[in-house]
């Protein structure tokens, strides 16, 4: 009998056949139930480390004031993907950041945007990189764009200085949702944001002074983007690489605000394309942003908010896999 047992022991090692070569983020929207509340939860930004599969999520919610003003709330979490079963999960725990204590006020805070990637486990690895947190707030009744520097320490984002208004971009109208278009113009920083200074919300570009960042410039060249803007409301631009995603209630959608994308090429931005009925509904879809997944996944991660039925109430956050563009 030992003769029969020995070969079995010799071969009893680990290792299993995988059914997926790479991860796949669910291509149909999934309610981000672990962070949503019965109130409005939207306008998010997520910093992720694919090597460690950890992330930090920041978004606007009126949960803390029971439906009154919007403040930023934050979560930390892990991404799980099983190459055997194809199951994808984003597990979260509520996590406070000192940075948000510095920027949250009795006014509304919207449109969070981090300029830097999620820090590696060793914070000093990326010492000295550009770390600015842009957002919009309405202390004077209309939205203005603000900026606050930050650092990463003790596992959280910490403010490095006081928040300040990005004055060259702000007007008596509403400005918000700034997003940097990296390396668009050499030695200048290019950003896009929304403004209703022409009546309806449109998407504008802003170019810094030479050798300066947008948040350092005193004179900024601002121009409405005719390709990205329409006669309807075009809001919440977010740029990842050469792809911009934004919300618009223009014609050609599925009702309410839909999500659209445009690709930047040698001819500038392409005509916006609706992201399709797998993502858009007759309800509102709002403030999308895309997180590139590199070689880890077959598709990229997009998070957006929607007031579609089936959520926890009001606007909820959803995540979905979108094609790499």
């Amino acid at each position, binding site marked *: 009998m030992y*003769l*029969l047992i020995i*070969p*079995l022991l*010799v*071969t*009893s*090692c*680990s*290792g*299993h*056949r*995988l*059914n*997926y*070569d*790479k991860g*796949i983020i*669910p*291509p*149909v929207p999934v309610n981000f139930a672990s962070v949503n509340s019965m109130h409005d939860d939207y306008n998010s930004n997520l910093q992720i480390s694919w090597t460690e599969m950890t992330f930090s999520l920041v978004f606007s919610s009126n949960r803390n004031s029971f439906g009154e003003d919007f403040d930023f709330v934050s979560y930390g979490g892990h991404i799980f993907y099983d*190459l*055997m*079963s*194809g*199951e994808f999960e984003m597990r979260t725990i509520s996590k406070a950041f000192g940075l948000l204590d510095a920027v949250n006020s009795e006014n509304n805070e919207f449109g969070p945007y981090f300029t830097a990637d999620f820090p590696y486990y060793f914070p000093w690895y990326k010492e000295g990189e550009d770390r600015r947190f842009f957002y919009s707030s309405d202390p004077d009744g209309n939205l203005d764009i603000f900026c606050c520097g930050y650092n990463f320490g003790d596992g959280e984002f910490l403010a490095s200085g006081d928040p300040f208004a990005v004055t060259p971009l702000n007007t008596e109208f509403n400005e918000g949702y700034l997003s940097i278009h990296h390396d668009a113009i050499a030695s200048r920083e290019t950003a896009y944001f929304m403004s209703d200074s022409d009546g309806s919300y449109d998407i504008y570009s802003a170019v810094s002074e030479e050798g300066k960042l947008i948040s350092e410039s005193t004179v900024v060249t601002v121009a409405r983007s005719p390709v990205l803007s329409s006669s309807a409301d075009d809001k919440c631009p977010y740029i990842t690489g050469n792809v911009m995603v934004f919300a618009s209630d223009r014609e050609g959608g599925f009702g309410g605000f839909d999500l659209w994308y445009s690709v930047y090429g040698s001819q500038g931005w392409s005509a916006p394309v609706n992201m399709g009925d*797998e993502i858009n509904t007759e309800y509102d879809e709002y403030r999308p942003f895309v997180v590139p997944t590199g070689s880890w996944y*077959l*598709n990229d991660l997009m998070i957006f908010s929607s007031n579609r039925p089936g959520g926890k109430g009001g606007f909820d956050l959803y995540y979905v896999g979108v*094609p790499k563009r």
Partner: protein
Amino acid sequence: MKRIILVLMLVMITDLMAMPQKTTRKSVFGVTSGISIPFSEFANDRFTWDAGFAAPGPGIEAEYLYYGKIFGFSSSVGYASLFFNEKGYLAEYDRTMNGYGVNEITAGNYQVMKFLVGFTLKVPEFSNTEIMLLFNIGYARSIHPDVRVTNSELGVINSMKRDGGGSPAVSAGLKINYWLNDRYGLSLKGSLDNTRPAFFDATATDGFFFMPIDYASINIGFVMNLNTPEL
């Protein structure tokens, strides 16, 4: 099943001690063919850790046995080609992808070539019939098929190249010979086979994986006694 085998072995060993073998030894060559049926995780058609998605396929085996009244030597060379359960595999992708896009699968067959030696315990021949238990160990060369899964929206979502792996193998079986005359007979054989080869997979986390291959074979064929005076 284990208890039955143990009881049978005990009876045979007792028999062996009580009735020393006579000199009527047989040198038997046999060829059988039939069906090989995967079982356990090898046949599992869900996305579990060791699921093989194998389906029944044809098998063939050649044997040589040398035995006396109740004890003897056995050896065999066998080949089995087990189909890949494409339908089950596709169903799992359709389930886990929530119906996104159209999935398509192309896959070849599992193949196992085994070389075994061991011993046999049998009951004394009665009515031209022999019933024997076979216990063999040896080596198996297994081949994992090409597998390619594509999704109409995402492209190739799983791919694995055909690869072969060798590993120790064990087999236990029950064989019934019915002798038509002193030289020729018919044979019915059932066996359980196990091997656990490693296969390379460029997209796997460690670059390779182990696959437990378990299958039952039910074969019929003929046997020939090489020890007859005419030969």
